[in-house]
């Protein structure tokens, strides 16, 4: 995925823990962990809105586009995704 979420960096700057942020944003710790480790395939605007509100930042500070290193990176997909050969 070329879109990277810099949640860990912003959390470090704001000195807020994962548990605290999850509680304030209103999502589970597991889901926040999915976001933090860049495993998420999509993010809802409501979630992004809550994150920016609690972290007092802009979406651009959280989201970053990283160009693919090589063509192999573009085909990496989770189980059941279109890229997978089932």
């Amino acid at each position, binding site marked *: 995925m070329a879109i990277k979420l810099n949640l860990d960096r912003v959390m470090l700057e704001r000195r807020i823990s994962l548990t605290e942020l999850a509680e304030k944003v209103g*999502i589970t710790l597991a*889901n*926040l962990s*999915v*976001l933090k480790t860049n*495993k*998420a*395939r*999509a*993010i*809802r605007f409501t*979630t992004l809105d809550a994150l920016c509100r609690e972290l007092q930042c802009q979406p651009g500070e959280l989201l970053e586009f990283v160009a693919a290193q090589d063509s192999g990176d573009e085909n990496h997909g*989770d*189980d*059941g*995704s*279109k890229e997978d050969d*089932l």
Partner: protein
Amino acid sequence: MESFSRILPKLFRWVFTVMVVLMVIGAVGILIAMIIDPGLPVGTHFGPQQVDILGQPGTITLRPVGGDSNFTISALRNTVTISIEKAGGFIQVLVRNGLPVALMHVIFLGALFELLRRLFRNVERGDSFTRQTVLLVQFVGLSLLAFSVVSAFGESWLWHAAYGYAASHATLTVEGKQLHLPPMSGMPFPHSQGGSPIFFSGLLVLALSEVFRQGLALKSEHDLTV
């Protein structure tokens, strides 16, 4: 209505569990019968038993002749009679060719019920769209396709063996005129009473497996949407 739809997968799982057990018992019974290789005891007699054939009175008789028995069916007020000499041999043919076909059916049904049991177990757990479910549904579809072909040949083989024996030992009498069944020539042509519906059911299930696969993709996408 909601509680009923929640109970349904559990109910189906239990039904299929019972069916699997019954199929296992049936398979063991058939295997025992194949090992014992039962035959018609010498001197067996039966009837004449009055029966209703095509709405007309008829009779069924089994009478001992020599070391075997003759089997006779009379129908339409005795105007049509089918007589099979050495009925014990006919029973042997049916047993030796029919029991393996029956065993194949029972094993297939047992495997099918087991796959369906696992499928409904997953559905009961809320894991309807998983890779395992997709594979299960695909396997059910492929099994149905394979079984429709194999059972057609099996049933045709049984019919060929039974007809082959009947052709040399059976006599059809119509209005006093004796007719003999023509010998069967050539290879047995696959024919099955239930082959086509099973084949098309297999195709339908394979199509459904594609639906499940797409459902899995959507679910994965949804699960990783925060």
